[in-house]
């Protein structure tokens, strides 16, 4: 037998890497944000997007109703087949409604991409560990739910493939972006969900 690796070495070679800085990785992955209608989860991902877009009218960022981001994205994607819809959510928010991945897989709208910014922790409540830093793999759950185009990004050189995945293709896609526990960018966004609804619809040319 050739070289042998110990169990510990093998495990560390395949262990998830939470090393990327979300403040650089999220903008690099998304690219030109104006190309998307964007829905976010709570806390970290809402700040990622508010900072990136200057709290743009093409974004709907949440601060409650945890577990709803992916399904808001689905309703929007079905309503606007002419636009690309991006859901940017965290591991904690997605864990609260994993069934939505199954629902999205069945509908499979080609204009919907989900990016889970996975830092393995509940940052907003004091960085308690989430299931994803204890062995749960959300890309495998997305793939097992039936989403056909999935990808995990852990290193800088993997980001380009993710940028392509969320912009191209004929099926819904899912990207797991593993990041460190660095704080999301600070940004004071509009927290009024009715204001945000009105400005979003107005930007799309809809009346109140």
């Amino acid at each position: 037998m050739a070289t042998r690796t110990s169990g510990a070495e093998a495990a560390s070679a395949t262990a998830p890497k939470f090393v990327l800085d979300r403040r650089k990785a999220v903008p690099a992955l998304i690219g030109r944000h104006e190309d998307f209608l964007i829905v976010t989860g709570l806390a970290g991902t809402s700040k990622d997007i508010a900072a990136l877009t200057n709290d743009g009218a093409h974004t709907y960022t949440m601060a409650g109703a945890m577990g709803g981001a992916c399904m808001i994205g689905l309703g929007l994607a079905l309503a606007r087949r002419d636009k690309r819809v991006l859901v940017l959510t965290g591991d904690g928010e997605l864990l609260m409604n994993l069934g939505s991945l199954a629902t999205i897989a069945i509908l499979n709208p080609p204009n919907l991409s989900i990016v889970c910014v996975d830092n393995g922790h509940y940052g907003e409540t004091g960085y308690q560990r989430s299931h994803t830093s204890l062995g749960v793999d959300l890309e495998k759950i997305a793939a097992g739910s039936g989403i056909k185009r999935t990808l995990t990004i852990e290193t800088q050189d993997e980001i380009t493939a993710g940028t392509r995945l969320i912009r191209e293709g004929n099926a819904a896609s899912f990207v797991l972006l593993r990041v460190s526990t660095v704080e999301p960018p600070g940004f004071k966004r509009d927290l009024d969900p009715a204001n945000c609804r009105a400005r979003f619809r107005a930007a799309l040319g809809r009346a109140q």
Partner: protein
Amino acid sequence: MSTSAAATAASKPPAWQDQVYDLLRKNNVTQFAYVPDAGHRTLIDRSLADPGVHSVALTTEEEGVALLAGADLGGARGVLLMQSSGVGNCINMLSLTSGGRFPFLALISMRGDFGEGNPWQYPMGKATQPVLEAMDVTCLRSETPEEALAAVNAAVTMVFQAGRAVAVLFTQKLLGAKKF
């Protein structure tokens, strides 16, 4: 089928559930979300057979609350079909509906009310209307086919013109209790 039976079937007015479906479609409802339910079978089957709508099977009812908000952001109209037990699964997600002032239309088949034989259905059956009202959803109860159609008609105006959140409750007096 004999000629006379065919003639009878052809002259029979459509069931009230079919009239409800036609009413929703006439009002441009294009997203039908549901967890499978016997009381909503006609509406679900018609949405599945209708190429003009998205028929969205959910894993839990709260997904439908978020879906309808997304539909509204994109300028589309949706309806959530569920059993009263599913209302309990929606409560926190209705923060989105209420806080965002999203239009919200739900049709709810009641369990745990008139003639229910399953004791498990009573807690949520009794709680359905109070918890919906606590989350700022107006409830319209209907006990006959005429009331049901009138209530859905009223709800469509309240939801899509006034921007309200409304649930139409189809009682077991209307639907009939499931046999156990």
